[in-house]
């Protein structure tokens, strides 16, 4: 029987999420704690880190892993124009780049940033996407590895020790928080074990050779230590809210939104716009764990006091199950799957504890209420 958080809408099927005895999830606790945090002290701690870790010479002060979306752009903007730092923006290319994000990135660069982007070998990338979609119901496993390793590779290559990641997902959105320090300093072993779940070194097969894995492999630990890489979560130092990040950046640049007024499967139009595969990725989250993109977005807004649970529930009922039709044909092409193969794969990932097959319909056994 799936249980849902009493204060937001998150189910206990979310990997690693922790519920307390009153049925409240750890993301809601993180949100509540924000009211008690001394943000001035956190800001001072941030300035102290910057002073200690910015390189003495070289043009760049820090690296921002950057998709061009509202969150990483808001961070880059604040670092550059509020704190006077010179960040190098580093992007691991989306699997299926979306023109909206190409536009938004260019708007940021026009405002005055340097940018490095790695786009991985697409023969290998498409092969891995297809394999991981079939085997794991997630076409982005390797992308997750690349988006984590490429900024650290850049830190080593350009000798820039300081990296600012956005937020710690396990505490911010629900999961297992290994220690207080894990909310502040990025632990790459944790990321590998929690988010990626597998060592990219294992992905060699008849198509993929060892050198093809270069974008996905974390640099040699000795090199990382020599540069003294320190990867910090910006959200630890400054109050985090995806809605506020959007409000912030839209005042600064011409920030374009989802084409049809909202994104498939949810009510928002400003989040996760850079990769067309994301519409499928979040739908597979719905298939595997029983909560979709609308629940995910609503939880974040409920936790930040931007929406009531009832309002979120209504939006979840309306949009959570919506099929990601906008780019469906492109998804099939990218994954080299026929419609029938696609459907068969999706259904194999349905957990019978979560889903009930009624005729040719799949119905959630315990929908959120």
């Amino acid at each position, binding site marked *: 029987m799936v249980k849902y958080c009493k204060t937001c809408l998150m189910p206990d*099927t979310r*990997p*690693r999420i922790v519920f307390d005895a009153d049925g409240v999830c750890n993301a809601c606790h993180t949100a509540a704690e924000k009211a008690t945090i001394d943000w001035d002290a956190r800001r001072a701690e941030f300035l102290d880190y910057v002073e200690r870790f910015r390189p003495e010479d070289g043009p760049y002060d820090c690296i921002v892993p950057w998709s061009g979306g509202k969150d990483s752009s808001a961070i880059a903007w604040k670092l550059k124009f509020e704190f006077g730092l010179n960040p190098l923006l580093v992007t691991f290319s989306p699997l299926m780049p979306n023109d909206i994000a190409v536009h938004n990135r260019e708007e940021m660069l026009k405002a005055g940033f340097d940018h490095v982007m790695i786009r991985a070998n697409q023969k290998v990338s498409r092969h891995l996407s297809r*394999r991981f979609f079939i*085997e*794991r119901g997630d076409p982005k496993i390797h992308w997750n590895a690349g988006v984590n390793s490429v900024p650290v590779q850049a830190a080593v290559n350009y000798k820039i020790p300081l990296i600012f990641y956005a937020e710690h997902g396990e505490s911010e959105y629900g999961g*297992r928080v290994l220690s207080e320090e894990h909310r502040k300093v990025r632990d790459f*072993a944790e990321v*590998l*074990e929690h988010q990626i*779940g*597998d*060592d990219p*070194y*294992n992905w*060699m*097969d008849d198509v993929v050779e060892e050198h093809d894995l270069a974008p996905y492999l974390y640099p040699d630990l000795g090199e990382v230590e020599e540069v003294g890489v320190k990867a910090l979560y910006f959200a630890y130092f400054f109050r985090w809210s995806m809605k506020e990040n959007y409000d912030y950046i839209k005042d600064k640049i011409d920030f374009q939104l989802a084409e049809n007024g909202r994104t498939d499967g949810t009510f928002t139009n400003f989040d996760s716009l850079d990769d067309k595969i994301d519409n499928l990725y979040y739908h597979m989250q719905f298939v*595997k*764990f029983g909560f979709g993109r609308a629940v995910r977005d609503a939880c974040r807004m409920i936790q930040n006091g931007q929406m009531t649970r009832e309002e979120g529930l209504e939006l979840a009922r309306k949009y959570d199950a919506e099929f990601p039709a906008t780019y469906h044909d492109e998804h099939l092409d990218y994954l080299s799957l026929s419609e029938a193969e696609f459907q068969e794969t999706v259904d*194999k*990932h*349905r*957990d*019978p*504890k979560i889903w009930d097959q009624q005729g040719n319909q799949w119905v959630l056994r315990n929908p959120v209420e």
Partner: protein
Amino acid sequence: MLRNRLITVLTFNDGTLFRTKLFEPDYRYTHNFVDSWSVDEIVMLDVTRDPSADKTAFYEVVTQFAKECFVPLAVGGGIRTLDDARRMMAVGGDKVVVNSGAVERPELITEIAEAYGSQCVVLSIDARKSETLDGGYEAFSHFATRATGKTPGEWAREGEALGAGEIMITSVERDGSLQGYDLELCRQVSDAVSLPVLGMAGAGNWKHFVEGVEKGGLSAVCTQNIYHFTETSIASAKKFMEKKGIPVRL
């Protein structure tokens, strides 16, 4: 030639397949992608904590699995009596895995071995690092919450004398990590007994499988990572092991 085995370990909480980390269920998954052909053996463990919980869901999943499984299937979790072992065999197990039940009542090992043969009894030992015991490890039972006062090597040797056919050694600290097996722990147990030793917890990449055999003295390397369960993963892992000179069934 005796070949080294690659074993898939599946842990079920109330009938649902979960990956575990530090002995807590962590990531749930469907078992539709578990390859039961190219792997050498499958171990299914019921890790439901509540001792009074209904085991029906677990038995059902074992039965389903056994129907499509072409390799030996070892089954365990909560076995306290010969009757419990019998039940596990009846639903589809080819052998049983005992842990806390054998710590509470060591003669359980002998009872099962006499009924089915030693080859059907796997003694599973969960070990934590210890600052007081010689060798630096202590065997634990009851989901690694209860200390036995014995080193894993001592308990493995006793198990061998009582009739166990294999020892499965699990590092509690490495459970769910991708940092490699605790090779020192594996070595202590494989040195202590003449039985085949199965190493568990920490397998992150295929180099770890090779290390487990070469440095840990393991006869079989286990992986509990759901990402290593598919046919492609197993086939390429075995190819890798063979290239490194480990005899495996391809």
